[in-house]
């Protein structure tokens, strides 16, 4: 489990290269690695741009069936005023493309977001890879 502080633009690059490294180690395909890396990049950029600072946690879990990579992006920023709109394509308050959050949702398998002015914003995403298993049952 690694926790990365996001305070500058450089940290965005650092967080995504860490994510790519872990995704590669876990055996994700090149396309899935790129998806995971792009998602981390969007999440880290959101932290930097809207909250100023925060953290990105990346970790993995494995069970018999699948390997998962989990990313948690957390900040103590002002929160997202209108979550429904922020999750729609083309909506932006920051002069960007408005592709960030809806894009991340499409890039990953799981997407969970909580946001409030008191507690900031927390986005949890995950991507899974099915592990080819031989039969786990033995007689």
């Amino acid at each position: 489990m690694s926790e990365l502080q996001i305070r500058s633009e450089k940290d965005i690059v650092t967080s995504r290269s860490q994510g790519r490294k872990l995704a590669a180690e876990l055996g994700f395909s090149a396309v899935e690695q790129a998806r995971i890396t792009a998602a981390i990049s969007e999440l880290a950029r959101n932290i930097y741009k809207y909250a100023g600072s925060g953290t990105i946690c990346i970790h993995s879990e494995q069970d018999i069936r699948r390997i998962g990579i989990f990313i948690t992006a957390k900040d103590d920023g002002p929160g997202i005023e209108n979550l429904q709109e922020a999750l729609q394509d083309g909506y932006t308050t920051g002069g960007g493309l408005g592709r960030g959050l809806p894009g991340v949702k499409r890039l990953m398998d799981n997407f969970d977001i909580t946001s409030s002015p008191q507690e900031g914003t927390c986005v949890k995403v995950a991507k899974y890879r099915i592990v080819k298993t031989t039969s786990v049952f033995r007689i």
Partner: protein
Amino acid sequence: MRIPILKLHNYLLISIQIDLDDQTAIQFQEDLLNKIHQSGATGVVIDLTSVDIIDSFIAKVLGDVVTMSDLMGAKVVLTGIQPAVAVTLIDLGIHLNEVTTALDLEQGLIKLRQELEE
């Protein structure tokens, strides 16, 4: 970090070989426009073969630089977009519809020549 811009006859050639951070991308945008202005180049090829991630910000910077160059009278072709990058861009909802692309540098130069001679 500065991205080198090479001049070849009337063209400018750029190969991006680093993991682009925001500052480098913005700097590149400025450098390219200045170089077009100085050199009077009519065509630009930006090769992305070594780029393995484009997020929404970098995509915006690249899309903008194509439009900006166009305003200045230089045609830009993006080349060598990796399969994984193409998939990611579409997931992000970025289609780069107005941008001319080509498979590799060679195809890019051919395309540029065709468009400029028309």
